[in-house]
């Protein structure tokens, strides 16, 4: 069988070692039981078969359960049931003799959840080498400079260079020029987890900004903080916005309820020059349950008879609609010249979704392959979206209440945008799927840990490889051939259920009935591109031979194909 192939292929990961090699039966929900061998390495679980190979990175496993006991009689009723984070379940039937299940279960449990067993994550063991170092893709200073910062109204602050002000923020922050370091410290006391309003993005022409932060610590007593109020007013003044708009991502009731735990929202009396808008996006627990329901209707079988109402009852697309329409409102406000502040409770889930989506709508740079990486590095990774808690890398506690598909939901929103604007993005669907696969894979350091300060303490940048190393070393398969750069265009997707659709190629990709073909349009386009090049070459050859034969011929090779054609049409 294919074991040698398997090893050769994965020599890449030098530290890979084989743990288990056993006969099992894979109970495929689509094709029935398949006999095969299972190989478990410290990175992946494989079941090679001459016709069918199942290949699962261990870190994608969320939960392992034994099914059946010593007394189980039915066929294939004794074995393992594995729940994965990427919308599938795996079922293996084993022989009851010889403790094979105990061995497999033990090894799987240990290496699927290394952190729970005092073992390192695979990213720290892998020694893959790539041409490009993906850790260099995001340099905060370069990115701010690209936005035209600092300027006379906005300055770079190094107050957090040792994570002293806020341990979940990055080291480099952009704040109003008029605000002193002392101001920032005082504002920090009034914002949950000291996540003060800082600049995410500035509009080059109208100087309107997107600020992000956490909720103010208003509490039951309705506390006020003069420094915070003044700070927001300075932000408003920076581009002469008459009214600063504060987008609170939460539903109104939740914001009110947060007062009980010391949080809350900006009251009208305290912030006279601000208007507060609630965007009604639900919390991480609601999103987690929604995705769970979605999985129920698409895996293993797609709910058939009442597909649309089942889909509706998961509310997944409604949540997508709310996130998108929130981001549209932010983008619309900013492009019409008004500065905005965005927050939710702590400013690392819904806030990251809203600011990054709004930035994607406003700034075409983020729609390029590398620009999108910068956007993720900046708004998600450096600003402390809690990847470790939300995904649970290497952690056995599958029922952890902190887990939630917030990042997946964001990528889904991006996908919806790429569907609506098929020429506006340089990356394609495959790229988005690869990003999501490596969100769970632990092969790269990119999505590990909750924030920069922890990442620093684990030396992630030196000890692991970045996902962008893989991507940027060979970009062809991630590029959308229809991409047409348009620098100053604001994209407003339509956040209506009429246009939102389930991302079948991601959520239902394990189902073989869903045909996974390259889109015919894309295929045809690539064929035509190849044909054009072929013709151009042929023409060039002809011209070359013409010019050697004929003295009066004058056909220099035009640089661009367009010029070439127009030129060629004239002489005959």
């Amino acid at each position, binding site marked *: 069988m294919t074991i040698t192939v398997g090893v050769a292929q994965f020599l890449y990961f030098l530290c890979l070692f084989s743990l288990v090699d056993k006969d099992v039966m894979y109970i495929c929900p689509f094709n029935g039981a398949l006999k095969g061998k299972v190989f478990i390495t410290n990175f992946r679980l494989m079941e090679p078969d001459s016709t069918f190979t199942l290949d699962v990175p261990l870190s994608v496993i969320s939960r392992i359960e034994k099914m059946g006991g010593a007394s189980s009689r039915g066929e294939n009723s004794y074995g393992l049931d594995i729940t994965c984070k990427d919308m599938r379940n795996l079922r293996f039937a084993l022989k009851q003799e010889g403790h094979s299940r105990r061995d497999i279960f033990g090894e799987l449990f240990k290496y699927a959840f290394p952190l729970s067993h005092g073992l390192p994550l695979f990213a720290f063991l892998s020694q893959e080498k790539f041409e490009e170092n993906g850790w260099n893709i995001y340099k905060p200073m370069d990115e701010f400079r690209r936005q035209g910062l600092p300027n006379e109204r906005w300055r770079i602050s190094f107050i957090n260079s040792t994570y002293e002000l806020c341990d979940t923020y990055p080291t480099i922050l952009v704040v109003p020029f008029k605000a002193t370091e002392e101001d920032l410290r005082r504002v920090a006391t009034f914002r949950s987890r000291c996540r003060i309003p800082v600049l995410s993005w500035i509009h080059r022409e109208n100087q309107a900004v997107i600020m992000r932060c956490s909720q103010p610590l208003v509490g039951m007593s309705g506390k006020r903080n003069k420094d915070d109020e003044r700070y927001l007013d300075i932000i408003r003044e920076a581009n002469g916005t008459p009214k600063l708009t504060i987008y609170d991502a939460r539903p109104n009731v939740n914001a009110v309820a947060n007062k009980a735990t010391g949080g809350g929202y900006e009251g009208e009396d305290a912030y006279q020059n601000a208007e507060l808008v609630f965007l009604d996006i639900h*919390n*991480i627990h609601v999103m987690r349950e929604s995705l769970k329901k979605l999985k129920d209707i698409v895996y293993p079988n797609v709910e058939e008879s009442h597909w649309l*109402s089942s889909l509706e009852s998961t509310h997944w697309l409604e949540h997508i609609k709310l996130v998108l329409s929130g981001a549209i409102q932010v983008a619309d406000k900013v492009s019409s010249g008004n500065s905005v502040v965005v927050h939710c409770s702590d400013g690392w889930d819904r806030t990251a979704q809203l600011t990054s989506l709004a930035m994607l709508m406003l700034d075409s740079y983020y729609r390029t392959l590398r620009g999108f990486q910068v956007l993720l590095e900046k708004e998600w990774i450096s600003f402390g979206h809690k990847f470790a808690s939300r995904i649970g890398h290497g952690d056995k506690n599958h029922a952890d209440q902190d887990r939630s598909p917030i990042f997946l939901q964001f990528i889904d929103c991006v996908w919806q945008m790429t569907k609506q*604007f098929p*020429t506006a993005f340089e990356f394609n669907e495959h790229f988005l799927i690869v990003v999501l696969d490596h969100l769970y894979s632990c092969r790269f350091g990119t999505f590990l840990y909750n924030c920069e300060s922890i990442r620093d303490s684990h030396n992630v940048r030196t000890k692991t490889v970045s996902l962008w190393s893989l991507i940027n070393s060979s970009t062809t398969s991630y590029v959308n051939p229809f991409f047409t750069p348009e620098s100053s265009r604001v994209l407003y997707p339509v956040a209506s259920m*009429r246009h939102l659709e389930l991302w079948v190629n991601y959520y239902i990709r394990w189902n073989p009935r869903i045909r996974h073909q390259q889109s015919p349009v894309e295929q045809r386009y690539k064929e035509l591109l190849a044909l054009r090049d072929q013709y151009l070459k042929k023409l060039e050859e002809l011209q070359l031979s013409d010019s050697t034969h004929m003295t009066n011929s004058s056909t220099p090779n035009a640089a661009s194909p367009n010029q070439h054609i127009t030129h060629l049409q004239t002489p005959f």
Partner: protein
Amino acid sequence: MLSLGGGGAKSTKPSFVSYVTPEEIKSEKEPPKKEKHPDLLPGEVIFCSADPVLKHTQDDLSQRGIFGTLLCTNFRVSFVSDETPLEEMTQHFKNKLYGENDIPLMCVDNIYGVYDEKKKLITKGMLKNKCPSKMIIHCKDLRVFQFCLTYTKEEDAKKIFQGIAHHCLEPKSLKCVFAFSYAASSSPEVQRSQRTVMFDSKEDWTQEMKRTKANLRIVTENENFEFSMRLPKFFIIPAAVTDEDISKFPGKGLPVWCWSHHSGCAMFKASTLPVPQEDGLMQGYMERMLHAVAHTHLYSLKLEDLSETLPTIQDIQQSYNKFKQFFLIDNSTDFWVSDVKWFSTLENTGWLDIIRQCLQKAVEVVECLEKENTNVLIMEEEGSDLCCVISSLVQIMLDPHFRTLTGFQGLVQKEWVAGCHAFLDRCNHLYQKDKECHSPSPVFLLFLECVWQMVQQHSPAFQFSETYLTVLSDSIHVPIFSTFLFNSAYQRESTMKAEAQHLQRGPLNCPAVWDWSVQFDCKAQELFINPLYADKLKQDKAIRKVPRAKHQRQLSLPSSAFKTPPKKGFFKDETESLKKMLRVKRISRWMASPDSPAAATREFYETWQRRPLDYHGLLLPCLDGPAMRLWMQRYLRWIPEVQILGGGPVAITSMLAELLSQVQDLRRELDMRSCWETEAESLQLRPGPLALTRTSLRLSSSFPFASNRNWTFKPAIPTSLLQSLMVTDRLASQEDETNEVISLV
């Protein structure tokens, strides 16, 4: 554009508030042109007109609009704006017969009157009532018009309202349809649509038999409809049917040939016999018919009575009536309110499910023909509704010829027009109130919907585009074409003759809808062609590389692909016992359906799906929930809230078209240099929709429709969001971080 009541004026009540009186507007303008009217078509007469009428733009609730003249002619309701029309440049796709502000009378679906801010459906009885302040017209092509009549002189307003309502809602007779005045006055240039086979001559039918290698009997005795008025002039039946039997029950129960599979088996359709009175006679007749069909190939037969397994035409009508309501949207508030429960709303109409059922049934028939090589006879009361849907779908799935533009048009001619689908009744062109005997039902539209699903799933297999299907669905309601105007071939011929006699002139020339030049110029017609269509030429080459099954014409699955043992036609060995069975029941149904039909065909689909996709071979639709889509172009094109500016599928098809034209230019260049070996041709190139190149930025997702509307650049921000998510359980109120408590500072 003149905008009224907008700006800072916040109207508390939704009624119209204007700061400009109509008189003022008039005086500002140059002396009003007299007799404003659209360019009239030959034979078109104006009945009445009124001005000024305010036509609301659908954009928002701000009650903005354009002033103009509202007219009613014998062809259309027309609104002529006081403003000079926009530059023609945006008009990529102009219909020559009617503009965006014209509604052919047949296209009017419902008229509503707004009385004291209450919207009421106008019925015949309400004509005498007082004139409404606003008239809302819902069209069958899903446009919505709102005309405000409060500026018009009361007398004029009443006249135009009654005129329009009368001409749109009153039952009328066939000879009053505009097509006849048009045909009588237009120059009789006989221009048969070039290459579409019309199936109105013996040659057309024999040719089709030859093409499919069928060896059956063509019946010519009905040339003058002496023998049945519900059958075409020429038709084909199994060779084994005797002369005596043909005329026994005029046309009823007679298996009429639809198509032959390359294996030799064929598909037939038949109407059901009237309720048996003399039992023996009918039983015997039906038995002989079945035997005759079975004789065609290997003595096998499967019989399906569609009326027992598919929705009735009344179900179809009801479902579509519910369905279309959700696209006839009066204003933005309604739009966002209906957005909340959109998916379940859509599902509850049942329309998508009816489409799925038809496709499902067609796949079952395809399985019989393709996998089991069994003759199929489909039956239904009239044999000209769902029989047409299923037989056409089967042919599209099996025969790549019908996926070309002319092939498809030929198919519609063969199965629907010659096949005597009762267009006149089903489309209710004459507004007959007697629903009992006319049963309006959008059966043909249902067929187009099914085809659209196939086009959506396997775009490169079809030469025609989505736009083509949308335009075709609109053309049903344009009373110019003979194609959709009659209930049968007999009615077509007799009516035309009578009209010609009445006018005392030669044969009337009513164009077929396939004369696309009547509606669109060449540039616009280019949009009917799918730039993705993979040509046969190229396919043949690819096939040469991979040796495939013997049938060059068909290129379908070799039957060895299916491992299941061939189920023998049950006639084969057990004729006697079957005869007994037939005496007990009329006939047995699909034999092998232990599970639901869906489960039975699933295996067939999956086997097909595992093979490499051949766009010129057998084509099956995926029927899973997520695969059944809404025909967005047709249903959403006029709704401003859903327009994606600079996006949508057109953004990439226009790029594709542009590249295609570049490649074609190069190719031409190389050809001229004449040293290009023909061997190297890997792609046969056909003209793509070039007209839209380089403008993709300004195009909206509704392209090419509604192209001269000014879509707003402002984003559509959903309202009424909160109602949607009634997440009231404990999760919603839970804190994001459960295990930590915010430190109170």
